[in-house]
């Protein structure tokens, strides 16, 4: 099998790797980097359990080849918590009761991050539409939408508090103006 040399940043960590040309991003993340939050559910792009952010855009990692990663950035659920503190979206999933068996949860979180880049203040209809590619068998989905709305509130509050205190606005992993602008223009064109 031919291999490709890639320089890739995953959850903020740079890697130099040689990957077989037929290896999927899903298997690269799980087997080479041991990022097992990335779940295999169908291996054909239907269930969304393996969703990761690739340059700010949600992809089914089972449908992307690792060889395509050179020079790119990947974010998985492992990369959401920072300095021992959960991401507001992770907190919101817990508080809103959006987690049951938890198998779809990492992919849902990543799709939620992608949604918030597209629509910083989404409506329930936008949440349903943008997160439709992630299947959940336990929750009935509504509490996941609750969690996204709660996260928006948490981030807005944190920003407002920072502004009021004259501090720079806090940043949240994955919520990234660079990517959202790029993705928005592609998405809408």
């Amino acid at each position: 099998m031919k291999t490709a040399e890639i320089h890739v940043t995953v959850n903020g960590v740079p890697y130099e790797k040689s990957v077989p040309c037929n290896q999927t991003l899903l298997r690269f993340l799980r087997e080479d980097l041991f990022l097992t939050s990335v779940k295999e559910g169908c291996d054909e792009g239907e269930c969304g359990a393996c969703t990761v952010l690739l340059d700010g855009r949600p992809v089914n990692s089972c449908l992307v080849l690792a060889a395509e990663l050179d020079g790119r950035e990947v974010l998985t659920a492992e990369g959401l918590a920072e300095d021992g503190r959960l991401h507001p979206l992770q907190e919101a999933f817990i508080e809103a009761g959006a987690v049951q068996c938890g198998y779809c949860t990492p992919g849902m979180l990543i799709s939620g991050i992608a949604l918030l880049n597209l629509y910083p203040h989404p409506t329930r209809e936008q949440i349903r539409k943008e997160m439709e590619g992630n299947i959940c068998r336990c929750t009935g989905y509504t509490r996941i939408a609750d969690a996204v709305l709660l996260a928006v509130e948490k981030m807005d509050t944190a920003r407002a508090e920072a502004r009021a205190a004259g501090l720079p606005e806090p940043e949240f992993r994955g919520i990234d103006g660079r990517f959202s602008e790029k993705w928005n223009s592609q998405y809408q064109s």
Partner: protein
Amino acid sequence: MIKQEKLRPCEKFQQEGREWDRLVVHRKDTTGDEAVVGHTQLRKDAVEKVTGTALYGADVNFPGQLYGALTRSPHPHARIKAVRVEKAKAVPGVRAVVTGADYPEPYGQFIADQPIIALDKVRYQGEPVAAVAAETEEAAREAAALVEVDYEPLPVVNTLEESMKNGTLIHEDWSRYDCSSVCFPVQGTNIGDQFHLKKGDVEKGFAEADLVVESSFRCGQLQHTLIETHTATAIANPYTQDIQVWTPNQSPFGIRGLMAKIFGVPAEKVRLTMTHIGGAFGGKYEAKCEPIAIALSLKSGGRPVKLTYDRHEEFEATVCRSTVQYYIKTGVKKDGTITAQQVTGYWDAGAYVTTNPRVDYNAGFAAHGPYKIPNAQVDTYVYMTNRTLGTAYRGFGVTEAATLHEHQMDIVARKLGMEPLAFRLHNCLHDGDEGITGEIISTCAVEECLRAAAKNVGWDKLPDRWVDEEGNLCGKGIACFNKLTGTPSTTSCVVKMNENGSLYIWSASREMGQGVTTTMPQFAAEALHMDLDRISVAPVDTTMTPYDKTTTSSRSTFHSGNAILEACEDIKRQLCRLAAVKWGCAPENVTYTAGGIIQSKKNPALAIPINEVGKSGIMHEQDPVLAIGRYGTSDIFDPPPVDGRQSKRPTVMWMIGAQAAVVKVNPVTGRVKVVKMGAAHDIGKAINPTGCLQQIEGAIVMGLGHALMEEMIYEEGILRNGNMVDYKVPTFMDSDVETKITLVENGHPEGPFGVKGIGEPGLVPTAAAIAGAVCHACNTDFDSIPIKPEHILFRKEAED
């Protein structure tokens, strides 16, 4: 360590088209103002799950691990003439090949009819015919494809109707198999099991009736579609016969027993280490990957072997919910009083019996619903076909039974000219009535549930059917049910105090998303008045964890809760004894107060709050604090005899509930939208209210798929839609259902704090309520689910 401010449950979204309330009917061992029980607690497993650190089946890896792959039969029914593995063995990296000849003894929980790998014949498409372990997944799959099998195709039994002709037999000789006392195959037929219940005399009841109504109902074949597919990783030592398996299974001790039998080793040699479960719903109750991974590990000198099914294998060759064809006949007086009802049913159980006897049994007791029926009969048969294997699916057949009896209730009500809810209320069971086994019914709040479910959709203000301003056909439907929990069954737990005063609960009740690792600590926290944060559930491993029957049948909170409460009483006694040693007094002079304080009766200054027991020094070099709790239902069980199944106590706990649905149907596209769902379930006592709501909300969307979308389509034994594109499960886009849920609390006399079960109930009436609403909207007796757009477009409206 997460540097995290404390997270709190968020309930602010409960107003936006989604509400819940609580209806207290009867309190048992609860004042309603407990500190921990009855209040929403955040799930203890949530941080692990949102950070992606929770380890599921396929996340477990070992150095030197091999990968398994299977050669599967392309034929649904064929004789195996020869299996040649030479080419497969020659693939570089292959370390073991196993065929049916290696393990010729069949296994099975109720009847040993199934080989772990097919031996002389294959009975369904995708049945394993050989297994390979190799250094890489690619090598394993390549080798599996190179196994050569000579098949002689046999006539395919594709449908229930073909199976019932008994022209082609799936199992030629049932008598060859080791059969348990609770499975009833019929020699020379495709009948793998049967169930017969008889109360009174239905013929007499029909003769007394003013009206006799007959109808039929069919529920399609469903796949659980767990997002985590089946997987197991085994290390099996061929010299010592020590077997260890890491698996996301919901029945650790059931699987341990089966593995011991298959591999001819004593049970204690089999160690099952449980991972997180990515969805179960009954689908992870059977042994699937476990025995094959073990066989491959044994054959490769004890190397670790991981076997994970892909999505196509999951559809074709794991388990499903059987098709069932039901017939029902009801005799009724003009005033709406039922005089007799008879149910006959035929399950299409697929190629092997598996758990179908249990499905048949549970559905049999629920086939008439929670109604007063003086003369009742049930005759159901489990037929074998060349399809994938039927098993439990969140309710053990009771969902299908509810769909049947509620469809019939609507038809009978219409023929009588009675309002559907009024007809149900006229016939529903109350405490003191006789159930269909002759049992005197108690703790039965079906009327309260029906009324609350109806109120939750504004039932009284809605007509049966109407047309909205956009021209949609609208309708409402209501359904109620009763489901028993498997009885007898036993459980046990060990509650262990750590040196710092925190607690571990050792229990084999498996966390599979239903929240049992949160509710079990809640019981202990309440009993001991201890901080919930200091109590956790230990990982489950059959070498260490005490016995529990299975995590099925909505039994965990009820059974484990009782065991934990018993253990906690002992913990209190042990702590008082240790305090007495420290204080140099007699143990009877120390008491454990309701507020969780170990208190000297003589000297008020001598007191240790439970949360400070670790610091108190009373445990230092003293007897460790370790308590056992047990709970079982053998003593209360009155075994229902095979002829007629009459019993004064067929189950320790009946679950009762009702749901009402409002739908709108687009007459042009045939598309159905579920607008509202009102639910009311008698949960006895909501231990973790959000946990109860999660179960019901999730089940509503799951049941919506069963009513309107999901169906496995077979042609000549070949599955035509075995993937997530062609087999549709509900997505986020289907979740826009206005819901209102009432948690009815009618305390169970034997439940801890009065609790009953809620894992399965939410699903049971969902499809029935939706189907009823669609029937009303379209003025059509749709006699099967799923009701798809084509059924709606080509419907024939009811005449009456």
